Structures are given as structure tokens and as C-alpha cells.
């Protein structure tokens, strides 16, 4: 497989980068991260009207733009670079992914146009307090009653769970693993924002007490669609992480060029240069894996489950390592709240854990690839 970005994709990227530089300065990131929602609906909707970001990978038949994973990976890489505060991952990756993979034609027609237009903030709730990132960890129960369904149990670590209009929920039904949709304001649903280590990405814990839910797809048939959604999410998160890592690397380089010690810029010391070279290695390897994985999704590669693990593990380690180096290069100032580096450091830490850490993904990769 050959992979590279087309001139159209490059142009899309530079427009988006400009837009985010303008609308998502770190000053803005800092302002939004202090709010409980973590984003502003008006700004979020404007982003979708202007750039159609949540619509990127949704087919035209459901109000989207019908592009591929390659384009969506660009969106994520740029959002990761800018650390943009928006319910994008929850809505356009997790929820839209689950609906596209599991939903019936009617489900897609009903649910996707709202997501594509940016009107609906959505999310996927699957992990519970046990912190397991796979379907097997699910204990939340679904019961059918009089043609409808009700959910009982809890979900944790739900991205934007306290503000989402629509929640896709993985539950255990008598028939097997099943996906449902629940309205954010459904009766019997208690939502509490939890204090997240990464203040730029909010999470919630949700309690379901006899919450009525709509079936997404077929009862008991969600396993494959859910697994596929997780693979896609891991790959797209890897692209987001690659973008964040690259930004940190560039910022650290700019600082090192400007900071003088011992009568010369610290960038002229060999130990700083070698560190920067090693950072470039880490970031470029992570980008290569992430880009390749996104291209493999578009090509329908049968190795996707293993490639997804590979990309997630590679990006997790590269991002965190880059963040550690970046703080070090900043010296004392890198340890202050006023310096922006910690914002990315926290995102790197959170993204390392979210969807399963590198150890988890390495083991999964071995199971899927090497037996």
C-alpha cells in the first residue's frame, strides 16, 4: 500500500490548522477547560457549520460529507495539535462510529443527520467502574418490556457523558451484547461529571435506573460492530496523539532555539540536539503507524484489529515520551501552570490510558497477529 496525502487533503489540513490556531488558542483552551462542559455549544456548532467536521466521515445519504478515515484522521491530528476543546471524539468517532457499524438503515437515517450537522452532541458509554475497555466487562443490564427496553446499571469514563444529547450504550441483553441509544435527559438517568486528570477532555459517570432505551441494530448482535468501533477509535485516537506529540516537539524546539544559557541558545548543546533527534524519531514513527492504520481502514485491510493495537501502543508511548522531553527542555518553567506544556502532558497521559494502555494493546496485538 502506498500512502500519502493528496493535495486536496493537504489543503483541508492547512485550512483546519489555520481555523484552529485562530479559534482554539491555548488561551481559549484554558478558558474552556475551567468550565464544567469543557466546550461551548455555539462555538462547536459554528465549527461544524464552517468546516463540517463531524460530517466528514458520515455518508452523504445521512447528511454527511462522505469522506474516508484518511480525512477524519486529519481532523483528529489537527485537533490533537491544537488540543481543541470540543466533543468531537465522543460524537464523531465513538457515537457516530457505533451507529455506522451497528445501526440499521432506519437507525442511521434517524440518528446521523443530527450528528453531521453538529446539532447533536453524542457519546458512547461502554466502560464501567471495573475499567475494562472490552465488551466483556459490561454488566449494565438491558431488559425488554412491552416492545421497549429498559437499562439498569452504570457506566464510567464516558467522554462528554454529562452534556451529550444522545448516548449510545453497550449493555448485556438476554440475547447477548447489545447497543442502545438513550436521550441525555432520559428519566432515570443520573449524570455526574467526574474530575478528570486531563481538564481539556471531560468525563462523566452515568447511573441508569430503569432508563428506557431504543435498540440500535439487532438485539444480541453488537459484538462485532462494537469491536470494529473500538479498532477505529484506537486508530483515530492514535492520529490525535500523533498531532499532539508533533506540536510538543515543535514547541520544545522553538523554546530551545530562543532560550539562552551559558552564552548560547540551549539548542546548540549536543545533548539537547540528540534529545530533539530522538523526539523526531518517536513522533515520525507514531505518525507513520497512525497514517498507515487510517489508510488501512479505508482500504478494508483484514489486519485492522492488529494494526489498530499497533498504532495505539506506538502513539501512546511516543506522545508521553515527547511530553516528558518537552517539559525537560523547558527547565523550571516547564513545571509551571502558566507554561502550556502541561496541557499536552495531561492529554498524553489521559490518551495513554483511554481505550487501553500500551501494555494492553501490545498483548492484544500479539493475540491478533502472532497468536
Amino acid at each position, binding site marked *: 500500500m502506498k500512502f500519502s496525502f493528496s493535495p486536496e487533503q493537504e489543503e483541508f489540513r492547512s485550512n483546519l490548522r489555520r481555523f484552529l490556531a485562530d479559534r482554539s488558542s491555548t488561551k481559549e483552551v484554558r478558558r474552556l477547560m475551567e468550565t464544567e462542559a469543557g466546550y461551548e455549544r455555539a462555538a462547536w456548532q459554528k465549527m461544524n457549520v464552517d468546516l463540517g467536521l463531524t460530517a466528514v466521515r458520515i455518508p452523504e445519504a445521512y447528511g454527511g460529507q462522505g469522506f474516508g478515515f484518511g480525512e477524519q484522521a486529519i481532523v483528529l491530528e489537527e485537533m490533537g495539535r491544537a488540543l481543541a476543546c470540543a466533543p468531537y471524539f465522543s460524537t464523531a468517532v465513538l457515537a457516530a462510529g457505533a451507529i455506522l457499524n451497528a445501526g440499521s438503515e432506519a437507525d442511521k437515517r434517524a440518528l446521523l443527520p443530527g450528528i453531521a450537522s453538529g446539532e447533536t452532541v453524542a457519546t458512547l458509554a461502554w466502560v464501567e467502574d471495573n475499567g475494562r475497555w472490552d465488551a466483556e466487562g459490561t454488566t449494565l443490564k438491558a431488559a425488554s418490556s412491552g416492545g421497549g427496553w429498559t437499562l439498569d446499571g452504570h457506566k464510567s469514563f464516558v467522554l462528554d457523558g454529562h452534556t451529550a444529547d444522545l448516548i449510545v450504550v453497550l449493555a448485556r441483553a438476554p440475547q447477548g451484547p447489545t447497543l442502545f441509544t438513550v436521550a441525555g435527559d432520559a428519566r432515570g438517568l443520573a449524570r455526574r461529571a467526574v474530575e478528570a486528570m486531563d481538564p481539556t477532555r471531560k468525563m462523566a459517570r452515568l447511573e441508569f435506573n430503569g432508563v428506557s432505551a431504543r435498540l440500535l441494530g439487532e438485539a444480541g448482535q453488537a459484538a462485532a460492530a462494537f469491536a470494529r468501533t473500538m479498532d477505529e477509535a484506537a486508530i483515530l485516537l492514535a492520529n490525535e496523539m500523533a498531532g499532539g506529540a508533533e506540536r510538543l516537539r515543535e514547541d520544545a524546539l522553538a523554546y530551545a*532555539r530562543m532560550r539562552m544559557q551559558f552564552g548560547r541558545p540551549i*539548542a*546548540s548543546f549536543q545533548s539537547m540536539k540528540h534529545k530533539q533527534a530522538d523526539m523526531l*524519531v518517536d513522533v*515520525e514513527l507514531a505518525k*507513520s503507524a497512525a497514517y498507515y492504520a487510517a489508510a488501512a481502514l479505508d482500504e478494508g485491510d483484514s489486519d485492522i484489529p492488529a494494526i489498530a493495537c499497533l498504532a495505539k501502543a506506538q502513539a501512546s508511548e511516543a506522545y508521553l515520551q515527547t511530553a516528558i522531553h518537552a517539559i525537560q527542555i523547558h527547565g523550571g518553567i516547564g513545571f509551571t501552570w502558566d507554561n502550556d506544556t502541561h496541557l499536552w502532558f495531561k492529554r498524553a497521559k489521559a490518551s495513554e490510558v483511554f481505550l487501553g494502555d500500551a501494555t494492553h494493546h501490545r*498483548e492484544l496485538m500479539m493475540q491478533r497477529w*502472532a497468536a
Partner: protein
Amino acid sequence: MTELTEASVRAEVRAWLAANWNPDLGLVEWRNKLIDSGWGVPGWPRQWYGRDLSPGLVPAVEEEIQKSGAIGVAKAGIRTLAAATILAHGTDLHKQKFLRRILTGEDTWCQLFSEPGSGSDVAGAVTRAELRGNKWVVNGQKVWTTSAHHADYGLLLARTDWDKPKHKGLSYFIIDMHQPGVKVQPLKQMNGHASFNQVFMTDAEVMPEFLVANVGDGWQVTTTTLMHERRGADALRSWAVGSTREGRAYDEERAEIATVMEPYKWYPQRAGRVDLILTRARETGRIDDPVLRQEIARVLIMSKSAEWLARRARTAQELGRPQGPEGSLGKLIASNVARAAARVHTQISGADALLSGDDGPMKGVIAEILVSVPATSIAGGTDEIQRNIIAERVLKMPREPSIDTDKPFRDVPRNTVS
């Protein structure tokens, strides 16, 4: 002219091979045919044995040749560097005299850059070349010279002016290795092989027409050779070890491998043989060890990502885009991968890692990996030098303050003993 596509190129090569490949030809006879067809080095200019094929289509040609079982042009190590350097900087005379015989394998080459006093600092060479009458006369010592013991020609970097600063007083020559003034002495490596040598030159002679570029421009030519060497580090991995097929051409190729390729026999170990990791882990049953699985996965991830990084660089090149950072990282990453792979091989083999030769795991291949890997991070420019290059050229970080670039080389402090 019809537009070339990968499919059309493949079809054309296949048809040509079907009509021309014959294992009972002599090896040189066959390679001459291949070279005349332009399929031997399709990426080269038409004027010099090629077809001006875009770099993106070249691998397809190589693949077709390989699939058909036909033998390609000779391309071991230094020969490719010599060819690339001559193609870029040589005169028409150099090209006529040398290129074809490099491709047929009739001539072998070596790279006379490193000296006891200047390895990383190649530009610090003190081997001198002086114009006496109508010949250049060379005196000095080179070291770590791979293949010098069978080479017909050497790419020689020598100092021609001691009053100019170090990079300006160097010249680049092609030297005939079969002359009384050149003495080659094998050096035994830590892995037991002797692929490199010391080369002593005492009043060795070089014809004036074998100067490459102008007197004093040797450094620019050297950087071309080194650039190709760094890029080529990856290719070493895939060298064929010769086939078991029948036919005169195959017999002659086997003989070529036994002599000319011998010095590189262990080079495939350089990449740490990532390809053997899973086989070995299954063979030993250690594939089920959860700690080892983590280590194995790390190496596989690093090596796959490196492969995709190289592919990104290649695609960008095919599309005519400027070289990105991914192009410069290959050699450094290859030695990271090799080192990590060797560590994992040690863990997989456990106590058996104590054994070598026929007693060792995989008939000694594993032992060979373990004791050959250090070469990866030294040969062709050390890891440290690669990092300097990445930092200064790619990231444009300030250069090391240098104490020797502006002084006449005569006055520069340097190693006094060899």
C-alpha cells in the same frame, strides 16, 4: 508516448524476461543483455543503461525480475555507492569505463574514506595525494575498508592541499587497487569475520583522469557517497543469499556470492533479524511468556512503524514532494530496531544464547545476530553522527561551534598516532 503505469511496466518486463532470460547463459553475458534492455537499472538515465523510469515504478521492475527467477544486476554494497557517485559526479570517461562493469559484477569496489585518525570526522583525512609529473601519488593509511581484499577499484578521499581549511583541501579519486603501492591487510572483527581491512598506500598512483570532480571538491563528492550509504542501510536486510537453482548463470552467481558477497554474509544480521523473532519464540515455547510477549510486541511495532515510515518517504519521493524528515531517520531507526531485536533474541533463547556455531540456536544464526549488531550503530556513520545530522540539517538547530573549519588544515589539532 503512452502513459506508463505499474501494470504496463510489469507486463513489459515480464514479456522481455520471457523472451530473454535463460539460466544457461554466462552470468556476465546475461547481465550485459539485461543492461542493454534498460531493465537492469530502469531508474537511471537512458544514456547510461537506464530508462528514466520514475522511482516509484522501479520496485515493480525489481519484483518482476525476482519473481521470474532471473538474476539482476550486481548490486552488493559499495558497488551501488560507487555507481551512484560516478553517475552523479563522474566524467563521461568514468561512466563509460566503470558503470557497466559495476553492473555486470566484473569489477568490485571499496570505499577508502575512514582512517585511524578520522572516522566520524571523515573530512579530517590525512592520506595525501600529490601531483608528481602527470600522476597523482598517494601516501597514507585507510582502515575499516570493507571488501578491500577483493576490490578492483577504490573510492579514495585524500588531502591535496594542507593550507586550505579541512573541507576545502580534499580531493576524490578512483584508485586501482591492483598496483604495487597498495597493500591490503584483513582485520578480524569481533564477530570473527574479516570483512574489513587496513589499506596502506605507499607511492600508489592515480591517473589524472581518475580524479572525480575538481581538485579541492572532494568533500562534496564524499557527501554524495555517504548519503547513498545511509539510505542503503535498510536494503542490506533483504540481500539474497543465492538460490539453489540449476543453470550456468546460477552457478556463476553462487561463485560470486562465495567471494564477493562473503564480506556481507553477516550483514543481514544487522537488522537484528526481526523476521526470526516469532519463529524462534514459537520454537522455544516462550511465545507464551507474558513478559516476553510485551518485549516482542515492542520490537514488532517499532520495526513495522519503521517500514511504514520508509514507505511514506518513498511515496513522497514518487509524488515529487520535497524530502521530509522521514527520509533522514532511517539509519538511526534501523540501529534502534537492531539493538532491540538482539535484546529480545537473547531473552527468547535464554541459556542457549550462551552457545554459538553449530551448537548455537538456529545453527549459530542467533549467536551471529548477537555479536554482529554493534556494527549497525557504527558503520556508515555512528548513531551520534546521525543525530547530529538530523538535529542540524533537518531541525536546523545551531551547528556545533567548530574550532577547525576556518583554519588551514596544517594547523588543526588532530590524532598523532594511529
